[in-house]
């Protein structure tokens, strides 16, 4: 097998991280919530996601520091994010909300606010003092090498060393995202919660109307 170099992401990786967020959000569908919920074109989504990454806020899904990347011969092949929830005394949802409200035009916020009653049913709270697995993506050329599994395993090892007291890891996935669900199962994750929106309108804005919460117990020394 090729020898991939695993490292922390840097600002130079932002274009790849943007694609990671976009592809992970789509969950194998063509529905990009950043585009549908905020009424943005794909190019606008790319621009604003890059702007948010470049703010270098730590501790959420839009943090460069939450990502590990795998590269081969200097080419980034895959990325995956994970972070310790609420490590700075502020939840990752609030940090993300801060970035969105600071970077996005006000018209986007109004649009998202009007849709909140439709999409809120599929919101799952993050658990403080746990590890949250975020987005993962492998570029097409490098698929079939379990790079996402490798990156997430490295993330769990790395974050467990920082916070050995943490005993649980969580991942939230749309139920349609079967490849990612299978990957998590191979890593030892089990489904502990399923939620469903009865509002069919949600399918206009999100990849699916069912979401699952998966968890894995960490070995505590």
């Amino acid at each position, binding site marked *: 097998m090729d020898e991939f170099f695993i490292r922390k992401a840097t600002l130079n990786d932002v274009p790849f991280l943007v694609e990671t967020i976009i592809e992970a959000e789509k969950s194998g569908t063509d529905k990009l919530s950043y585009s549908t919920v905020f009424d943005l074109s794909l190019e606008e989504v790319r621009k604003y996601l890059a702007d948010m990454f470049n*703010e270098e*806020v730590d501790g959420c899904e839009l943090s460069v520091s939450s990502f590990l990347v795998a590269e081969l011969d200097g080419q980034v092949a895959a990325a995956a994010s994970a972070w310790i929830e609420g490590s*700075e*005394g*502020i*939840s990752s*949802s*609030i*940090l*993300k*909300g*801060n*970035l*969105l*409200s*600071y970077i*996005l035009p*006000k018209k986007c*916020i109004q649009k*998202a*606010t009007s849709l*909140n009653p439709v*999409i*809120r049913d599929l*919101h799952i*709270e993050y658990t*403080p003092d746990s590890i949250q697995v975020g987005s993962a993506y492998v570029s097409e050329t490098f698929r079939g090498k379990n790079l996402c599994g490798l990156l997430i395993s490295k993330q769990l090892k790395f974050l467990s060393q920082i916070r050995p007291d943490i005993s649980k890891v969580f991942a939230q996935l749309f139920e349609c995202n079967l490849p990612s669900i299978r990957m998590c199962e191979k890593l030892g994750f089990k489904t502990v919660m399923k939620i469903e929106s009865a509002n069919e309108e949600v399918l206009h804005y999100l990849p699916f109307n069912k979401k699952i919460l998966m968890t894995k117990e960490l070995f505590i020394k």
Partner: protein
Amino acid sequence: MERTELVSKLTAVFRKVFKNNSLNLTNELTANDVDNWDSLSHMLLITEIENTFSIKFKLKDLNKMRKVGDMIDIIMSKL
């Protein structure tokens, strides 16, 4: 603006955003204590606060707001 007046106006904003007329603000209140305080409702909350008090937060201000007391202090500093 006096702190009491600010808290009164801020309470009205919170009640509007979270659609909860019995919501009372304390310095120690955090997002974990309020139903539906997620990233989207937080965006709306920040926008409503900026409009109500005619201020504009910097990102570093926003990221210092761990509890409502921090939020009140930062708003006060901008008035």
